[in-house]
């Protein structure tokens, strides 16, 4: 029997959250566990909808008619944060960011790369940097 199939080009997919976030019927499930991101795709999708294909930054999703087949799961290793070690981004997304953001903006004013830190550690690094001079000037004061 022929149905509308959801196909994903594994070579193109970078493992971002777009398709799972836009799917109006929650057919695409994403989970991050033990340093691995798993995206669970349905084999068929009967909805009159192209949201996932439209949202995909890499044009990896195509909806075609074909013989019914089971769903499938794509797995992506997550890159650990260089500071806290928590896995936070897929290598594919990291590459895309690296290719989109100009090289000179990939490091901070001191030449350190912020891209290898998770958002939480970036925030705490920024906070510590901002407070540095203030902490020095308040060292002699009473708390």
């Amino acid at each position: 029997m022929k149905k509308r199939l959801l196909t994903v080009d594994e070579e193109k997919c970078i493992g971002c959250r777009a398709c799972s976030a836009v799917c109006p019927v929650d057919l695409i499930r994403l989970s991050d566990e033990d340093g691995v991101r798993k995206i669970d795709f349905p084999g068929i999708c009967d909805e009159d909808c192209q949201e996932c294909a439209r949202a995909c930054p890499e044009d990896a999703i195509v909806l075609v008619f074909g013989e019914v087949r089971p769903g499938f799961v794509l797995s992506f290793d997550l890159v650990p944060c260089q500071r806290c070690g928590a896995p936070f981004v897929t290598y594919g997304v990291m590459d895309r960011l690296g290719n989109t953001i100009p090289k000179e903006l990939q490091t901070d004013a001191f030449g350190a790369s912020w891209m290898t830190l998770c958002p939480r550690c970036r925030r705490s690094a920024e906070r510590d940097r901002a407070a540095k001079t203030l902490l020095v000037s308040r060292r002699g004061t009473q708390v």
Partner: protein
Amino acid sequence: MSKTVYADISRCIACHACEVACEKAHGAAKIFVDVVRDRASVPVSCCQCEKATCVMVCYPGALSQDNGSITFDPDRCTGCDLCVLACPFGAAVQLEQNAVRRCDLCSEREVPACVVTCPSQALIWDDVESISREIRKRAAAEMGRSLASGRVL
């Protein structure tokens, strides 16, 4: 020149009123006050970067930069998470329920809610030139006070 929010951290008293005001205005806070070693507190929110990496990576065009300030169109957002991962300060944006929430400088108000609420005038709402003038003025006043009291900066 467009206006932006600047945090003079030397005045921040860590009361978290800005977070509450933001949450009340938008349903969720987009400014965060972190206390560093019990001595300093730093409010972190979107810096409105001149070369905004979040805007560069936003392929559906939900984020755009116009005359300095960054605007966000939630209808175009795919929830891909790229802007969250592209923010050098890990502060501007957060992913929640498959959509990005971020500071829009309270586009519907004259002055952002966080700035109006700040009891210690640590948050300043003005154009970059005026902010820089105000900061220099405050630094000079502080130096004057230190010299008068004999306290070394």
